[in-house]
């Protein structure tokens, strides 16, 4: 008997393209738009940055060092002269080129190019460059003079940034500031006749590998928004079932059903089961689409089925509750309010539109007390590779929510003999 109702609901949904589009088409469209638009923002890896930096020297550094040694050979101790001749730490621009911009990690995202002074105008007009570092005349000579003869007027590099690439320019500036700090330390060590090569260890530490403490798999934006849109839009299944049921009351089909000696509880159970089954299939269709087109796959299928089942029960409960209330008040206002306003609020609280990780604890807690929020948390946990224990709380909440909604609906549903 109940199967006849479910079959009929399925046929009605199938013959109603607008409703079908809203329930199944909309999440697929939204997943496509959001997944494509937000591409790599949450793929669990560092964002892809491609910067282009040019360096223009006005004068050869080696020549400046030789000239400095000639000019100051009488004033500086021989060991210092020897150190300047051999030490990389006094070849500031060469170090910047080799050690900083030549480092493997930096090379991965910065295309560093040495250019001639004659190309300067051309480079400045080329918007593909993030920054142009200009080394003025006598830079190294004056740096050495400042460090070793205790003069305060040290020269400065001229950095020209592309206004259209502020984030990239900031990264280049940060690198240069770090390098400047290192030179400052070198100054200090040299001024105190200490060996500047001890700075090597600091540099190695800086570029050492970063190890994540959390070993879970990262969630990509496509995965996040697939889950977000699926858990939001499946709520429309509840309002659709509620609307179908209300129309049955409105056009007196419900009276026909009652006259066929079908009890209210069979009808009520059919509404509830339709909501649960259709929600479950809705989730399978949406996630199936995401699997085929966006490669959103589930490593732990049984856990995915378990979460989908629990979530479908809660949506079935909502469908029953909406039906019962609309029958009780003989009005579709509640169902309309649910589909037009409440779903959006629940979606925001549940994190369908943006991650709630940075929000207040209150919002996060409220989010987890919505069925879609709890469903989303459970799905994301499964995607991260968590096991059953980690999501059991969400599963229990979803099932309890579903049964609480069914109980509330049973109490609200008009009893036999009431005027429907």
């Amino acid at each position: 008997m109940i199967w006849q109702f479910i079959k009929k609901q399925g046929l009605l949904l199938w013959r109603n393209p607008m409703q079908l589009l809203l329930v199944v088409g909309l999440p697929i469209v939204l997943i496509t738009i959001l997944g494509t638009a937000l591409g790599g923002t949450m793929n669990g890896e560092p964002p892809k940055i491609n910067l282009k930096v040019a360096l223009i020297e006005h004068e050869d550094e080696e020549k400046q060092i030789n000239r400095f040694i000639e000019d100051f050979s009488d004033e500086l101790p021989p060991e210092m002269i020897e150190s300047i001749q051999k030490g990389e730490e006094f070849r500031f621009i060469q170090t910047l080129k080799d050690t900083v911009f030549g480092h493997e990690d930096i090379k991965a995202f910065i295309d560093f190019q040495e250019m001639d002074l004659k190309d300067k105008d051309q480079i400045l007009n080329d918007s593909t460059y993030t920054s142009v570092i200009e080394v003025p005349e006598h830079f190294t000579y004056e740096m050495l003079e400042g460090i070793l003869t205790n003069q305060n007027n040290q020269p400065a590099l001229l950095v020209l940034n592309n206004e259209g690439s502020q984030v990239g320019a900031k990264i280049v500036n940060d690198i240069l500031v770090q390098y400047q700090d290192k030179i400052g330390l070198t100054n200090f060590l040299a001024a105190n006749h200490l060996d500047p090569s001890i700075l090597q260890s600091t540099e190695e530490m800086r570029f050492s590998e970063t190890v994540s403490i959390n070993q879970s798999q990262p969630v990509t934006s496509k995965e996040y928004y697939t889950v977000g849109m699926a858990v939001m839009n499946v709520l429309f299944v509840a309002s659709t079932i509620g609307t179908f049921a209300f129309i049955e009351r409105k056009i007196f089909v419900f009276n026909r059903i009652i006259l066929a000696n079908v009890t209210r509880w069979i009808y009520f159970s059919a509404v509830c089961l339709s909501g649960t089954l259709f929600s479950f299939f809705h989730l399978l269709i949406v996630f199936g689409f995401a699997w085929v087109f966006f490669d959103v796959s589930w490593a732990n299928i049984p856990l995915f089925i378990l979460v989908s089942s629990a979530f479908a029960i809660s949506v079935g409960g909502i469908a029953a509750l909406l039906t019962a209330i609309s029958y009780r008040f003989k009005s579709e206002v509640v169902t309309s309010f649910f589909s037009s306003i409440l779903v959006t609020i629940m979606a925001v609280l549940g994190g369908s539109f943006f991650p709630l990780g940075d929000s207040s604890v209150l919002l996060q807690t409220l989010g987890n007390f919505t069925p879609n929020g709890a469903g989303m948390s459970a799905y994301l946990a499964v995607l991260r590779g968590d096991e059953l224990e980690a999501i059991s709380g969400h599963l229990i909440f979803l099932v309890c929510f579903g049964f609480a909604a069914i109980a509330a609906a049973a109490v609200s549903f008009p009893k036999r003999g009431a005027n429907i």
Partner: protein
Amino acid sequence: MLELINLSKKFKQVHAVENLNMFIEKGEIIGLLGPNGAGKSTAITMLSSLVEPSSGDVKFNGKSILKNPAQLRNIVGMVPQDIALYSDLTAEENLQFFGRIYKIKGVELKRKIDEVLKLIGLTDRRKDVVKKYSGGMKRRLNIGVALLHEPEFLIMDEPTVGIDPQSRNYILETVKRLNREKQITILYTSHYMEEVEFLCDRIYIMDQGNLIASGTKDEIKSILSAEKVISIKADNMNDAFIGSLKENPLVNRMVVSEKEVTIMAGKEVNIFSPLIKMAEDSQLDLHSLDIKTPTLEDVFLHLTGRALRD
């Protein structure tokens, strides 16, 4: 077969039906006549066990159905005033669904669907979705669904509202056939007195929640035995003439339409001469003066002072 005893229904402060007493015998076609809002539909929902009455009882074969309606529901077919069908399903799918909820299955269901579709003349359109049907076809399917489980007692609530005369005649003939050939007892409600006159053996007339008359057609019409009904037609019906009629003590009741006034006067009273004089005084271009055979409409006018379709 079925008895309604002092049946009343009150919605907040409104008495939709008050102390209604009716009986229906097996094989009869009973008419329940009354204007819109008379309480006919409320009475039907109570006697079909869909709504509990505020007071009174409904007895089926001597037993109250209020506590145990299942027995009555098994033999009742209901044709609601509204089109109670799934408009996105085909005629066949509608019949299949309602057949299955009546626990009819397989070959038997197929046979009954074929039979019903033939009876209502929709065999060729069985695969079409209902929303593509004309108003008359929807009405016919609305009846067909109620016949699927072969009910002994059919309740038809204004089944011809809003359809063309051809479909209306088809439905009325079908109702007659169902009663004649299958011995189905029928309760037919309408505010079209000609339908009730055509179909029904006995008639109940309701107004404002109360039963105001009951009996066979002749018994009801005999209420007007002391009065005659006169129809006055004129192209330029005017206020002066109507005012004169209202003031004339010989006119008991009257109903005014654009070009026609129907009046009731005592059977022994000679009212023609005064009528002609009033028409002359009012410069009325009198078209005709007819003495009508009383209809149920006239009875309703006599009893309530209003036309049935006011």
